[in-house]
């Protein structure tokens, strides 16, 4: 998986490309957790170019969401393809993540609620 990082104000935006599975999930966990440890506790994941996710990838996202919450940070997701959205629905996880239709909408939410915890 390719992970492209850029900073948008105090939000770290990671654009993911390819498969989110066991191997790439571990790579993503390493990347995001290193951002958290560096004090960048607001992380947005753009999944527009993620064409595959399995239960391992989903588990990675759950782990990162919980880690963000522990650090009083936020983890948001956007641009889920229909296939990926379906996986979230089948695994009944749509309600525990902050999912936005676009990156712009997600970033706007940080401006309006910068310190909101990453769980509803």
């Amino acid at each position, binding site marked *: 998986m390719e992970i492209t990082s850029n900073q948008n104000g105090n939000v770290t935006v990671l654009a993911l490309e390819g*498969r989110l*599975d*066991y*191997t790439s999930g571990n790579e993503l966990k390493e990347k995001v957790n290193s951002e958290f440890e560096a004090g960048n506790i607001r992380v947005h994941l753009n999944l527009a170019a993620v064409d*595959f996710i*399995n*239960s*391992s990838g*989903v*588990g*990675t996202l*759950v*782990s990162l969401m*919980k880690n963000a919450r522990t650090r009083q940070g936020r983890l948001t997701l956007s641009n889920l393809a229909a*296939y990926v959205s379906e*996986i979230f629905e*089948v*695994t*009944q*996880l749509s*309600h*525990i993540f902050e999912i936005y239709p676009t990156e712009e909408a997600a970033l706007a939410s940080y401006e309006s609620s910068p310190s909101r915890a990453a769980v509803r």
Partner: protein
Amino acid sequence: MSERRYSFVYQSNGQAEDAMFRDLDSILAELDLDTRTRQAFRLVVSEAFTNALEHGNGFDPAKSVYVDIRVNDRELRADIEDEGERPVNLDFSLAQPESESEGGRGLALMRYHADSVTSGIGKRGGTRVSFGLALKGARSRAIESIE
């Protein structure tokens, strides 16, 4: 009707997943599948494969995962087998784990996407997972060229 069969063996290491997807995608590229069937088959193979690597073989590079795929003009079938020491009877119910659990969703996803899924003891003493997906009117270009 003719059937095509593809068999692969993968060492249980960090490169296995990529190697499996390369082989699987090359097979699926030969087939005239609708997107949903293709995605479903990739997902179910991936779930069974990851379970074999992680839970069956414990990522022990001395152990292998065996993947056997069969295609005819009615269905896609696969058997995924590990070399674990204790074969496991898997529960393929659709029940989900506690919402913030980081694991435990793979079997339900397999059950949701496959038309049939079973587990048992493999030829090598580990766990074997077998599943099938019906092809909805699609035919293999390769099989058409044979007939």
